[in-house]
């Protein structure tokens, strides 16, 4: 388990796939021999929260449930929003460019190239819709009930809202946007005819694998950290009202 006393450099040596994750916190390479705790303090990041997220990404079976209550919901929501913006503004365009480059250099008929480009464009649209739904509905909901719980704002309104909706509804409806990604991987691995620039294909495939893993971990954080935290706050708000 990664703890805040070890050097940040060691974390990267241990698992370099964590680099995009630490980037989301605004941390970049070049932190010298500083410990995780020191780097976090330099960037105004809660080091315990940071290590929870890193451990969740690093180790699939990591269940940080006991530590959950220590962190504010605002921290989680901020992190998730930064992750969303990384996917939409950085990763998806990068992958789309790789696909277009690969198709340009291939000898595939124009129509098939268009079908593949359309496939990815549809995926991007689906992805963006999913994210917008979270940012326009769930995150404001989470912020509102946190405001009521921590700062006693809008309690009546929150209480009424909770009669109709709960974070559990979101969890049950939370659908899987990774299917198309999985299909694309298989098409490239198995069915696309061999391309002259196979290094480009390998690079594209590697990006797809990484994105898929990142998205899986992202969903786990939403389901295992965000949802229980908010559910607990909901419960406490409702209990308070009853007393």
């Amino acid at each position, binding site marked *: 388990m990664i703890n805040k006393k070890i050097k940040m450099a060691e974390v990267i040596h241990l698992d370099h796939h964590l680099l995009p994750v630490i980037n989301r916190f605004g941390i970049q390479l070049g932190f010298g021999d500083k410990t995780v705790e020191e780097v976090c303090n330099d960037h105004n990041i809660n080091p315990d929260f940071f290590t929870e997220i890193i451990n969740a990404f690093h180790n699939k079976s990591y269940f940080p449930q006991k530590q959950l209550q220590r962190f504010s919901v605002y921290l989680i929501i901020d992190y998730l929003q930064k992750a969303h913006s990384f996917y939409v503004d950085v990763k998806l365009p990068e992958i789309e460019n790789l696909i277009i480059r690969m198709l340009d250099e291939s000898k595939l008929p124009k129509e*098939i190239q268009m079908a593949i480009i359309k*496939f990815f464009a549809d995926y991007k649209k689906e992805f963006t819709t999913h994210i917008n739904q979270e940012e326009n509905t769930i995150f404001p909901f989470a912020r509102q009930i946190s405001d009521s719980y921590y700062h006693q704002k809008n309690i009546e309104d929150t209480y009424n809202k909770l009669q109709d909706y709960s974070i559990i509804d979101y969890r049950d409806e939370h659908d899987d946007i990774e*299917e198309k990604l999985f*299909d694309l991987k298989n098409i490239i691995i*198995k069915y696309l*005819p061999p391309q002259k620039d196979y290094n480009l294909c390998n690079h594209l495939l590697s990006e797809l694998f990484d994105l898929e893993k990142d998205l899986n971990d992202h969903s786990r954080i939403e389901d295992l950290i965000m949802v229980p935290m908010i559910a607990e706050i909901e419960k406490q708000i409702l209990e308070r009202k009853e007393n």
Partner: protein
Amino acid sequence: MNRFKYALAESSFVIREGIKSLLNSYPNVELVEEGNTCEVLSSHKLDNSIDLLIINIPQLKEKDIKKIKWISGNHKTKIIGLTDNVCPQKWDNIFYEIIHINEADKSLYIDLFDKTFKNNPKENQNTLSQREKAILKHIAMGQTNNEIAENLFISSHTVMTHRKNITRKLAIKTVSGLTVYALLNGIVRIEELQ
């Protein structure tokens, strides 16, 4: 070596022979009882656990269902239903798979038995059958399961079974992914798409 034991409850002699001949190509598969539903379900040979029961659905009575549920519950026996028309919805969850015998082609049986015995499919079983390619073409053209069923004169249940098999063989699930595959392999031409 594990022997797979199966029983065949189907009153039609010809259908029984057909199923037996398909199953004969699997090693270590042994028939323990055959006959009509009544004979098979009351046979004491079913008291020892069997791995597979293949049974005719239209001939089933309510009292038979109890016995079948007991068999599948106790012994983790797989139950495959054979029918020549619709299957009553309420019995859906008893069956591992349901085959519409008037429509099912050879590849459907092979895929099903491969799955049942967790056989390593023979090399040519990983490629799509003619039927599956036809269904794939219709999927790529944007048709729903019901539309495909109408166009090919089969039930939508059979269409769904074919789709499951296609997804399993190709490891592609979404319609757009299947469309790309179909285009790459000449199963459909771009002009035929909407």
